[in-house]
């Protein structure tokens, strides 16, 4: 493939990582959600680009899902939830931003090191893509573990999943990509509904653990 | 014919110890009395005591069981057999191989076992005191005795008394440290076993200090006679054991004519006399110790014996 296409794909993937970093930086929920919407849009772009490059037209479906579902539906839904639960003012990072950022950089470096060990004979685009995807996944996990709030953890999970989709689309001719993205969207929908259903304000398990343990007689 | 003769000699030996045992005790008492400037009872007083006891009726505690009445005979028999198996005037008699030194010690052990049981049978506190103190003393005296036996056996290469005596009598066996140690230990054990001063006082009935007497407190009449007799025999046994192991000279071997036998008996009686005098002097010289000093006394004996054995293990010539 010629340099330009490569560069564009590269750019988009890199942009995705950048946006992940931005998510790490946010400490307000609304801001976080907006950044995530951006994340989804960038993903949609890169997927579409892949579809174009690889002439794999089914990938456009994935791109569309990313755009409509993740960039629009979910963020709106999350806005609603936040207002319902009245937690839009929370500052809710469990770990300081700075250290989080440092950790993030470390993770990106790690994924680079890992992927650059891959023999260059492999498709370079795929290789770079993988490096970015891996870092996005790790960053998503990082978001999940550094945020206290259920909503932001959902967001983290979704960014993680974006990384997956990026990797999947980056892999030439990988079957089932669309199905997988659909499946994941359903999964996320479940999670969001769960958050909404169980009125989970604080953490995923806002359910008072202490009370539970008394019930179970688990704690002495 | 020869067999019958040998059996006769064996029987003679058994009778000899039976006859001499009270005499020895009487002799010791006499000498002690003399040393304390008393006239003291006559030599044959023990015989008289025995006879009188035998004629008396037995007063048996209500709570005494059949065991209580059997035990005196068992004790007497065990002690007698043990005493008869020790070469007194002659070695290598017909049945001398029936039991070696270890077995003889064990026989005395059974006698003590039953005596302690007798003490507990009636169910008074005295019996208990005596029994528990007795077994405590025994639990130290027996190991000491066995270790002494070890060192003798290591020197002689046998636990068979006749052989031991023969070896100890042989001139090429010079003076040995380990043997000296075991001699001292043996004397200490003998004192303890026979309830002599300083471990116990045979002629006291003060409850707090009694050991042997406390156990037999409930006995009377013929039963008491048996037990007293057993005590006499035991003293004789230890004396003749020491003499046959450490001063084996004058012991005649079996199947040497009657003249030799007579000589042997004479020598044996001489040895007994000497030992009796020594014992009397010793007992007069020192005082009885408290019951709970006894473990230290016997512990010392045990250590001496162990030391002797160790020395022998380390080098055969010490």
């Amino acid at each position, binding site marked *: 493939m010629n340099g330009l296409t490569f560069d564009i794909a590269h750019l988009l993937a890199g942009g995705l990582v950048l946006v992940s970093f931005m998510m790490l930086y946010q400490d307000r929920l609304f801001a976080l959600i907006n950044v995530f919407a951006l994340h989804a849009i960038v993903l949609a772009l890169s997927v579409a680009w892949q579809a174009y490059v690889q002439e794999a037209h089914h990938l456009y479906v994935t791109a569309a899902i990313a755009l409509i579902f993740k960039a629009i539906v979910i963020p709106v839904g999350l806005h609603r939830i936040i207002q319902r639960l009245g937690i839009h003012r929370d500052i809710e990072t469990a770990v300081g931003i700075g250290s989080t950022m440092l950790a993030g950089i470390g993770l990106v470096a790690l994924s680079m090191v890992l992927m650059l060990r891959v023999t260059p004979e492999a498709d370079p685009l795929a290789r770079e893509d993988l490096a970015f995807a891996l870092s996005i996944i790790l960053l998503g996990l990082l978001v*999940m573990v550094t945020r206290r709030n259920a909503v932001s953890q959902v967001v983290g999970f979704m960014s993680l999943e974006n990384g997956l989709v990026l*990797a999947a689309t980056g892999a030439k001719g990988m079957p089932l990509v669309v199905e997988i993205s659909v499946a994941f969207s359903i999964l996320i929908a479940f*999670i969001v509904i769960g958050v909404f259903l169980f009125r989970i304000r604080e953490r995923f398990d806002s359910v008072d653990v202490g009370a539970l343990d008394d019930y179970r007689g688990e704690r002495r | 014919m020869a067999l019958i003769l040998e059996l006769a000699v064996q029987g003679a030996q058994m009778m000899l110890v039976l006859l001499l045992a009270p005499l020895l005790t009487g002799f010791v008492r006499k000498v002690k009395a003399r040393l304390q400037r008393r006239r003291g009872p006559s030599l044959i007083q023990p015989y008289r005591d025995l006879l009188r006891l035998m004629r008396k009726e037995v007063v048996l505690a209500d709570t005494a069981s059949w065991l209580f009445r059997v035990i005196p005979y068992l004790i007497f028999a065990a002690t007698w057999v043990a005493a008869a198996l020790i070469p007194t005037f002659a070695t290598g008699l017909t049945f001398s191989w029936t039991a070696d030194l270890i077995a003889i010690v064990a026989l005395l052990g059974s006698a003590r076992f039953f005596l302690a049981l007798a003490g507990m049978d009636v169910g008074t506190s005295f019996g208990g005191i005596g029994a528990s103190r007795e077994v405590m003393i025994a639990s130290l005296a027996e190991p000491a005795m066995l270790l002494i036996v070890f060192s003798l056996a290591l020197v002689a290469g046998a636990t068979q008394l006749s052989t031991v005596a023969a070896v100890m009598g042989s001139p090429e066996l010079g003076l040995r440290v380990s043997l000296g140690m075991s001699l001292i230990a043996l004397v200490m054990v003998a004192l303890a076993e026979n309830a002599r001063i300083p471990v116990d006082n045979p002629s006291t009935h003060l409850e707090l200090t009694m050991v042997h007497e406390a156990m037999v407190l409930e006995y009377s009449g013929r039963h008491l006679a048996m037990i007293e007799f057993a005590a006499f025999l035991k003293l004789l046994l230890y004396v003749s054991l020491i003499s046959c192991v450490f001063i084996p000279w004058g012991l005649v071997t079996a199947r040497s004519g009657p003249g030799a036998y007579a000589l042997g008996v004479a020598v044996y009686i001489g040895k007994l006399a000497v030992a009796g005098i020594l014992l009397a002097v010793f007992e007069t010289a020192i005082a009885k110790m408290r019951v709970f000093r006894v473990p230290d006394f016997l512990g010392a004996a045990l250590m001496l014996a162990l030391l002797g054995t160790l020395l022998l293990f380390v080098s055969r010539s010490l």
Partner: protein
Amino acid sequence: MTAPFDAVAAILLIPVGAAALLAALPNYKMSAGLNVAASFLTLLAALSLFVTDRPQPGQYLLVDDLNIVFIVLNTFVGFTTSVFSASYIAHELETGRLTAPNLRFYHAMYQIMMFGMNLAFVSNNIGLMWVAVELATLTTVLMVGIYRTHEALEAAWKYFILGSVGIALALFGTILVYMAAQPVVGEGTNAMVWTVLIEQAALFDPALLNVAFVFLLLGYGTKVGLAPLHAWLPDAHAEGPTPISAVLSGLLLNVALYAVLRFKMLLAASPEAIAPGPLMVAMGLTSLIFAAFMLYRRRDIKRLFAYSSIEHMGIIVFAFGMGGPLANFAGLLHMVMHSLTKSAIFFAVGHIAQVKGTQKIADIRGLTETHPGLGWALVVGVVAIAGLPPLGIFMSEFLVVSSTFARQPLLAIPLVFGLLIAFGALLLRLTGVAFGEPRGSTAPVEASYVPMYSHLALVAGAGIYLPAPLVTWFQHVATILG
């Protein structure tokens, strides 16, 4: 279509059809019966795989010596559990913990789960396998939450979240494997077909494979319940309906384990890639010892046995990690025995909890006095799970420990240590529950003894005598696993 394919198809289609029917059926008695019948038919279909000749491995489906072990075990335990569940839910309806609509949902989900697990076993396509595993997981999530109690929901939620992360990691691993295969095999589905991959694994890029394996091990390892990825397991076991606990411990863990094994073989086939063995050994030992210590403080009887499942999964993973014919054989045997025993234990525990009206260990005492049938079953089960002869697990533990000690003495010491610690804990709880002054309700219980006793009988038999064909077959599989 030849006959054998029908067998495979049957294994997959019967549960689907049954699920559809069950979703429609209102009457719970009928649906319970249908549930049993369907499971039985599936079992028959699975057994028919022995007699009929195997299908050629296609792009999606595969039947080989390895997965037949799993399929038959799966369908068998699925069948017995359905029998147990029939009597279990009857009681639940009486006490009103479950309602008829719940049950409709429950039965349908049960069959879907069976379908998912069977699919995971027969799938020859790593993507398909992933989908199947996740399907099975999600159905179990729904069933864990079925009681709608606070705790049940919380447990289900925990399970769901941790599971989803596991799902994601496993998927990434799968993608990486595809990426590694793609340059060699070429684009398209072929690069996901396991039989193709295993042939050419030697040519794959080792670095990619390594990363892939790490992700797969964590992703599927979460389902296997290896420490420290185990967090969902105890609560899910404790709060869900007992039949589901039985299936979770007895089957779902095996499904994930099966996936791990497949990828382990893949990695082992590539010489430059890191050896998967040490990694698995480490994880196994960690889980074993960790779970062993965790057993002591348990107050909830189902959670107790959930931790013992973690412990045994640790042993199995350890065995497969050690590799070699002896250890692999032991691992397979241990897996089968554990599934049978653990599900039997959960059958007993289910009835016990029902009759005593509590899961608190402290409130259950002297079972052998009040309910001899259940009590002694529990005693035998725990004795078996603790690895005492003459029951099957003893044989596998014998092989694992002795072979390990001969090869890696330093590994055997912690193994033995963990076994002893776990033994102490299990026995402590057992003496509390089965013996002593009886406590709690002494009401007679109408239990279905057949499933648990048949399991225990099988385990006891296997401890003393293994039929020769089974052995040769296991040995063959053990050599495949390398």
